[in-house]
């Protein structure tokens, strides 16, 4: 979380603005949010949804890193860029979106972080409590996740990717302790600290400890060790990721013409990991290749919303976090979590 709650009360302005959400997560959580510093690398349809959500929630600061110059393509799934070339012309995505985000909540410091995510160093990331990566290469994800884990400061790591009408979120909170509501039981003294909980639920509150694995560890889990019910998207994303990596492509720089090579890679990976190829449908790989960099706006809203809730939960240390992958696919309408490697049953 961000530096812990302090003694000072919320200002009258904050109490009035945040009334409805304080009734959801309590004053203590709101104070923690106001001290949290978030970095988002990669400005796209999904991450701007996320940014809108956490700015409205009242985080301490938000830094955006994306030096790409705004093009007409960006206007499609981005509601933060006005259709006015005199406003966006020649500016980076981060610069233009920053200005719009400030408007949503004057109490949040929104700033541009110039640079390339694949080159940022440890002292830079120490400024942040939360880092979100999107549309980053596997190499960059591994690099930044590894850096987060090496710091003595606790830095939460998330990656989010939207491939047209489906997407993936990965969560790494390292060691995380938080409060969890359990239904039933006698109300306890601690509930007086969380007025919204006391009113809406007479629940017990427990303190839970959980451990997350790095991306490296997660994606290295042999596929044969995963449950037969594991979301197919997990495997499909790993194949695509591996393909882009070995071909030196930017994320999303693929098309249907890559299909034969991707199918060959699928066979190769399934042989190595002892998984039946039918578990990764060709049609799914086709969809991901055809998606390229496209993001379906309703799916951006869903992924950005889920990610927003996750970050709010982890900053406030309240509520079960997603552990450790989340998938949404408009094709079947499911929003499912996967725990990789699976936690052994007690």
């Amino acid at each position: 979380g961000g530096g812990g709650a302090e003694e000072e009360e919320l200002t009258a302005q904050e109490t009035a603005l945040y009334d409805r959400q304080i009734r959801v997560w309590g004053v203590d959580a709101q104070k923690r949010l106001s001290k949290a510093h978030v970095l988002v690398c990669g400005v796209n349809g999904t991450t701007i949804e996320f940014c809108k959500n956490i700015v409205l929630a009242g985080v301490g600061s938000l830094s955006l890193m994306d030096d790409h110059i705004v093009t007409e393509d960006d206007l499609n799934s981005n509601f933060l860029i006005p259709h006015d070339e005199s406003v966006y012309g020649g500016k980076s995505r981060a610069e233009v979106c920053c200005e719009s985000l400030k408007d949503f909540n004057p109490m949040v410091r929104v700033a541009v972080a110039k640079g390339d995510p694949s080159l940022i160093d440890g002292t830079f990331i120490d400024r942040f409590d939360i880092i979100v990566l999107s549309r980053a290469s596997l190499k960059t994800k591994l690099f930044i996740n590894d850096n987060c884990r090496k710091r003595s400061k606790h830095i939460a790591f998330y990656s989010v990717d939207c491939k047209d009408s489906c997407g993936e979120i990965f969560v790494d909170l390292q060691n995380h302790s938080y409060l969890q509501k359990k239904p039933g039981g006698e109300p306890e003294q601690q509930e007086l600290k969380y007025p919204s909980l006391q009113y809406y639920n007479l629940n017990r509150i427990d303190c839970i400890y959980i451990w997350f694995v790095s991306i490296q560890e997660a994606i290295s889990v042999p596929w044969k060790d995963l449950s037969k019910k594991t979301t197919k998207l997990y495997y499909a994303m790993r194949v695509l990721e591996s393909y882009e990596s070995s071909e030196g492509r930017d994320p999303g720089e693929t098309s249907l013409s890559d299909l034969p090579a991707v199918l060959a890679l699928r066979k190769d990976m399934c042989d190595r990991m002892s998984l039946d190829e039918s578990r990764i449908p060709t049609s799914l790989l086709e969809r991901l290749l055809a998606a390229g960099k496209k993001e379906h706006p309703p799916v951006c809203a869903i992924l950005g919303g889920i990610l927003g809730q996750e970050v709010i939960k982890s900053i406030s240390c309240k509520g079960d976090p997603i552990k450790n992958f989340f998938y949404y696919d408009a094709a079947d309408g499911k929003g499912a979590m996967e725990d990789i490697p699976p936690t052994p049953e007690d």
Partner: protein
Amino acid sequence: SEEAVKAAKVLMVGAGGIGCELLKTLALSGFSDIHVIDLDTIEVSNLNRQFLFRKSHVGQSKAHVARDAILKFRPNINIESHHANVKDAQFNVDFFKQFNVVLNGLDNLDARRHVNRLCLAAEVPLVESGTTGFLGQVTVHVKGKTECYECQPKPIPKSYPVCTITSTPSKFVHCIVWAKELLFAKLFGDKNQDNDLNVHSKDGSSSKLDVFERDVDEDLDQYAQRIYDHVFGYNIEVALENEETWKNRRRPNPVYIRDTLPEAVKQNGSSWDCSNDHEEPSAMASLGLTNPQEIWTLAENSRVLLEAFKLFFEKREKEIGNLVFDKDDQLAVEFVTAAANIRAHSFGIPLHSLFEAKGVAGNIVHAVATTNAIIAGLIVIEAIKVLQDDYKNYRMTYCLEHPTKKLLLMPVEPFEPNPSCYVCSEVFCTV
């Protein structure tokens, strides 16, 4: 599907929490012909999630401001905004018939039922939705193919038996209802309304019919304390006389001013008066209480009650006799909180802060931006299926706080229409 979207004419009912997110996602998804209806104006407490609005918009129409905000990043789409109640006569069956799909972002059952019936009459598909905190759902209703919104009975709003409110409260909410609908209403509301409070005084020989009436030239402090002792002291003693009621229940304790605020009885001077005619009168401000999250002591609640009582008479006398409780009326919220807390104390029920009491008394729905954003995305996904008549893939989607079978977003196939639904069943005529 791009063509179906471009050609579609869509009606959005509600431009609030879900509405803002929905209008944004519709615009980004290529919808270019949208009507929006909303009767509300913008308030400060909306701004934590209704992101199309700014502080400078407070007081203005949600529908109009939402439209203007969207046109900034999609100047070429057609949005018609109506600052009106969807129940108005102008929004008749013919009006509804012009749309390919109707999308609801409402917050009350009454309006939802109304729209459901119009959609059935006009034979236009309806995508319904709702959110509370981290929970939400999206449902699809197509006449003849799926249940209508009313095929399954909806839970009616909670109401409490009269005797629970007047005699045997066991939860804080019972005390709030008493404070709001009995005490506040009796003192400051319409005098002609029926009220269950006991109006007879201890002194049987009193010529007064109603002990709540202020005596001619009665000192305000005196009046306030007299009412306090009547409702929290005498009325409780009267209730205690009925042994049967308390056989299996905790007996309440009568509370008198002489016990809770002994100093108030001695000095009848006015409290620390820092009144400023330009500011809204507030008992908390008068008494130097600054934290709405704090749970006051019995003595503090008593001070707040007496001070709020006096401020109504000193600063807002003209309104007395016409007041209706409003959650945005600070003094009313202070009064109701204090009164509920004193009653709660009598009955051994835990006290609550002003913040909590306001939520109960005002039926405030807790709300965050993220759930609304997720639901808006799901609405648009269903809307696109509806436009393509992709009925095999229609889903009711539930956004859960805790996963079920590892699902946080759970799709369920819609049910067929209920043959005995009194709203959509073909046995009945729809006019």
